[in-house]
């Protein structure tokens, strides 16, 4: 990563788009399959994708994957358009991207631990922003925003991310050893 993590060339354009399409399609497909859910934590494994794309390709790619991906997922499922949640999902990909420059090996233990921590923080911050925006938009009070929106979304995303991001990183390590630009 010669030009730093904020570089935005052809590669980033392509991986941003791939991440977004993956996030959209997998969110749509898994809710279409009606995966089992336990309590408040629904199985929405796709949230790991923007986080992983951030870690692997930098914050801008992560942001596009999260934000555009959420738009696509809502479009496919027929849930309309919710711009502030798109923004929050973008942040969920952007924040793990901040560590992209420091990655040497995707399967090194410390790197994986770091990625998990970043993903959890990303889930917290990413979901906090739209939850807080609900306060002026919908006139909620802080408690409702936190209990009604933020906490369930944060918990579910953090757990899904913490489990799946490492799995994707290990797989990606193998893929990137084969070729690459």
């Amino acid at each position: 990563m010669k030009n730093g993590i904020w570089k935005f060339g052809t590669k980033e354009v392509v991986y941003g788009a791939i991440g977004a399409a993956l996030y959209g399609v997998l969110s749509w497909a898994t809710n279409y399959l009606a995966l089992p859910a336990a309590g408040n934590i629904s199985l929405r494994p796709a949230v790991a994708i923007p986080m992983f794309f951030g870690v692997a390709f930098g914050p801008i790619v992560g942001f596009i994957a999260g934000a555009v991906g959420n738009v696509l997922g809502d479009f496919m499922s027929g849930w309309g358009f919710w711009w502030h949640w798109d923004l929050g999902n973008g942040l969920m990909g952007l924040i793990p991207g901040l560590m992209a420059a420091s990655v040497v090996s995707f399967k090194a233990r410390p790197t994986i631990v770091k990625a998990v921590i970043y993903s959890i923080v990303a889930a917290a911050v990413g979901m906090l922003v739209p939850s807080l925006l609900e306060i002026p938009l919908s006139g909620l009070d802080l408690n409702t925003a936190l209990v009604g929106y933020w906490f369930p979304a944060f918990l579910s995303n953090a757990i899904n991310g913490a489990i799946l991001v490492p799995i994707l990183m290990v797989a990606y390590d193998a893929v990137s050893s084969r070729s690459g630009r």
Partner: protein
Amino acid sequence: MENHAISTPLEIKNLNFTYRIRTTPAIENINLSINPGELMLVAGASGSGKTTLMRCINGLIPRSYTGIIAGEVNLFGTPIDQLSMSELSQTVGTLLQDPERQIVASYVLNEVAFGLENLAWEREKIIQRVDETLAFLNISNLRDRETFTLSGGERQKVALAGVLAMNPKILILDEPLASLDPASAHEALILFRRLADEGISIMLVEHRVDEVLAIKPDRVFYLDEGKEIYSGDPGGLFYTANYHRIKLPAEIILERAKAEGQPVKFNPAIVKLSEIQPDQKLLEFKNVSFSYDPTLPEVLHNISFDINKGDVIAVLGHNGAGKSTLVKHALGLLKPTEGQVLLRGIPSHKNTVARAAQTVGYVFQSPGHMLFAPTVKEELAFGPENLKLSPAEIKENVDWAIKTVNMEEYADSPPLALSYGQQKRVSIAAILSMRTRVLVMDEPTAGQDYWNYRFFMDSILEMPGFGSIVFITHDVDLAVVYANRILLLSEGKLVADGSPKEVLGDAEMLKRCRVLPTSLLDINLKHFPKTGRFMRAEELAHAL
């Protein structure tokens, strides 16, 4: 650039390249040149450096791929590193192997316009140029279609139009036939010849040498392990190239094999039973019809046949004939809309896929669609674990499967880091480890070079343990060499079901079903009265 007319389009001198992450060069000491309107075939086995050479010509090396480069590449007399990206792209056009991975727009119009949009041409000029290009390729009717809905052959023409719209003088085609059925491949080849006749210099990378020769390339460049082995007219290749590594015309192999020793004997493990006992019926299709959705047209029409112990079945048919749809019924991935599919007597709608998977193993075309585990061992254990076998059984099956596909030394490597050919073998082993009785393979050889796929098919057919093997293929040679029974599909109907001689001997019917005969089939048919069965060219040379 007025000097186009006088200087050679492409001249390469002493070119070497080593990728950043490798220690050995991918290509070494390459010298070649190409004239206007010349069609050059670049042949070589997998990993011989063909793609690397092409990347040196289109500028991806060293712009995008870093490494150590030495030597000269001149385009119309100008060294390539003195050309800007936009000059370069209007001189050299590249069509990548899989059009699916080259198409960047959702609509045909936008796809063809993409390069010109990037060059910031004026809108009206772009549209005019796009329309001209589409008309030139006879695909004006596709102009407003979505790229996703195109068939394989159409998709390739659209990708080609996107490249030609930029008006390149040199065209690089990297294995353009890989994803096409023989009829579409033939059509594409004729198109390439026409482009060369219009004055474009073409470099066509392909290991299906046999088929390319039909359009009479002007020259052949043959690579092995990054080095030039042969460069000259096509005739000379026949006697220098190793016919085990690339596919030469059958007559040539016949002639050359005669002069050499006996080939290694091929011993298929499945032996056709002389008569079929009723309890040997593995699968029965009874009047099966199918449509994906009530609103969509029917894809299979009233198909009936049995699969018995001892059958090695090749399923042939054009793109979209319904081959994949048909074989997916064997496992119950699809259930017939009318009729029944019985697996050892149990109708598929009373069975789960997981239960059927204990009898029928289905290997999908691309290993990339199924590999996920961190090690080969875990990958192979996935199936048996799902089937709830005991740990001891799982271990035993996994060890056996790894050994059968000859991958012991990779047992603990990640499957995703292996080469394509190795991944393909892992994907077969992942099915083998479930110890199924019937093996079903969808286009098992697609994307592999001749040497690899022959080795691979030989070893599968020599594996013990299967009652029957079914494979879908576009390669008639594969059916000739391996099958003892052929199902011929056309437009959702089962047109023929019989021995290779019965089905493939009927030239009229093949033509109707858009299946192209090959040189190997022709000589086998010619000598059939003497041999009494179909065989590969090397074997034939000694049987006569």
